[in-house]
């Protein structure tokens, strides 16, 4: 399998990569020759720096341009748009080819929309305010009051993996969750690691990342995939291009550039 993929990728590259890829996306994008990519409104660090995806700075922005290049689409032919989570999954025509905003791939979501193969696997991490007396151990975590963001896959992880004594509170977005933490209404919140690091460093005064879950500790680790409409023929091209970026180390390099702080956070035992 792996070998076959390698072979096909190599073949594609050999048969003048650009030309082959061009024929792949032809007639499958919203606008011929252009790739329309949606991000959040606003889009957050470290996924997009300064809410400006056109700069190509930030992990998802960088992946998007790398992906476009791999698909044979020029930098200038990448068009950015913004959507909410709801807009991304609602039925009907979409105004994007790809939607990249840390969408976790889940089986249920996959029945309604299509996902590319993952471009990042995010460990879940615990954000707390003041680490005093807290150790990154499951027993400690159970006794805390938890908060999560409604649209993330953090809630099932809290409920199933941590199973705290008190039922968690749920918020619309990161900022509200942080606000609740400032108000002392929750002790801890679960985010993907890069988001947790960002919130601890920039948004939440006194915020710290207590620890991260090793991917295998979670029943279904958080794989981020680019979201597309159900049955989108473009998926094949996107997957091929992403596989290439993985193989040739491009993804790892982008990850190292934008998500390097993610290392050095202790594992939860």
């Amino acid at each position, binding site marked *: 399998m792996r070998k076959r993929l390698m072979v096909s990728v190599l073949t594609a590259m050999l048969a003048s990569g650009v030309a082959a890829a061009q024929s792949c996306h032809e007639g499958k994008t919203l606008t011929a020759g252009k790739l329309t990519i949606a991000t959040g409104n606003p889009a957050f660090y470290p996924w997009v720096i300064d809410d400006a995806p056109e700069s190509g700075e930030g992990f998802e922005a960088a992946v998007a341009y790398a992906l476009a290049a791999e698909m044979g689409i020029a930098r200038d032919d990448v068009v950015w748009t913004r959507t909410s*989570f*709801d807009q991304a*999954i*609602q*039925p*009907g025509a979409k105004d994007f080819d790809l939607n990249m905003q840390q969408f976790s791939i*889940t089986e*249920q*979501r996959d*029945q*309604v*929309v299509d996902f590319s193969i993952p471009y990042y696997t995010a460990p879940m991490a615990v954000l707390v305010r003041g680490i005093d007396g807290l150790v990154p151990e499951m027993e400690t975590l159970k006794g805390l*009051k938890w*908060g999560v963001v*409604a*649209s*993330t*896959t953090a*809630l*099932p992880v809290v409920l199933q993996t941590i199973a705290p004594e008190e*039922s*968690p*509170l*749920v*918020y*619309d977005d990161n900022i*509200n969750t942080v*606000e*609740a933490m*400032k*108000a*002392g*209404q*929750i002790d801890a919140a679960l985010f993907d690691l890069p988001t947790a690091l960002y919130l601890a460093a920039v948004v939440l005064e006194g915020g710290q990342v207590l620890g991260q879950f090793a991917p295998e500790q979670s029943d279904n680790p958080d794989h981020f995939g680019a979201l597309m409409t159900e049955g989108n023929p473009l998926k094949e091209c996107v997957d091929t291009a992403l596989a290439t970026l993985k193989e040739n180390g491009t993804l790892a390099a982008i990850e190292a550039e934008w998500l390097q702080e993610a290392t050095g956070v202790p594992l939860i035992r």
Partner: protein
Amino acid sequence: MNRRQAYEAAQRRRSLTVAALSTGGVLAGLILLVPLAPGWPAVKASFFDATVFAETFPTLLQAFLIDVMIFAWSVPLILALGLAIALARGARAPALFPLRIFGAVYVDVFRGVPVVLTIYLIGFGVPGLGLSRPWNSPYIWGTVALVLTYSAYVAEVLRSGIESVHASQRNAAICLGLSEGDTLRYVILPQAIRRVVPANMNMLVALQKDVALLSFIGPVEILRQAGIYKSLLANFTPYVVAAVIFLLVTVPATRYADYLLNRDRNARS
């Protein structure tokens, strides 16, 4: 049956027929035509998925109990505070002028600020001042926010009711030697309150829906639970479930209120 009654009966039959036919026509049109729309299968899968409906209904019903609970303890507080503010606004003695000013400012402020903002400000802000658990609970401060906002509306409604009671009623009571307090309690308020029942019923229906806004600051009530399901299942059916549950409660409640009002009106004329 005299001629007039016969004529009116015939008129009633005719208008009933017209109403039944037109309602049936619109419904038939919806049921037959909507599924013909090209997007219908997708919409149906997103909003009317029977499996999702059955799967999420019990949990959503349970979450609805939180709404009912918040509603139940808010209403008496709202009515009490609303009455107090209405009385403060109507205070006649010159020495109570500051009270009138306070009442006016209170009403202007809390009617002018969107409920959501009040909920955020009080739900996160007051606990943020340094209250500790359980006194910083979002249930407490969310309720406070709802009570503050809705009592402002109720106060205005009550005040208009109080002003609609003719001055001669007050005079008659005073002439009998009743004190200001007794005049208010036995003569003015019973008439005023009766007059504003319909307006206040509408207020309570609105409150029933606004209770869901408390989910912004953490509580997992029915709309939040529906949102969580939506995001986990990438499907909007849970919202439809929530709507159905809301209607199951609000429609009979409003009908019952109408019935009570009509009964009262018929008994008195």
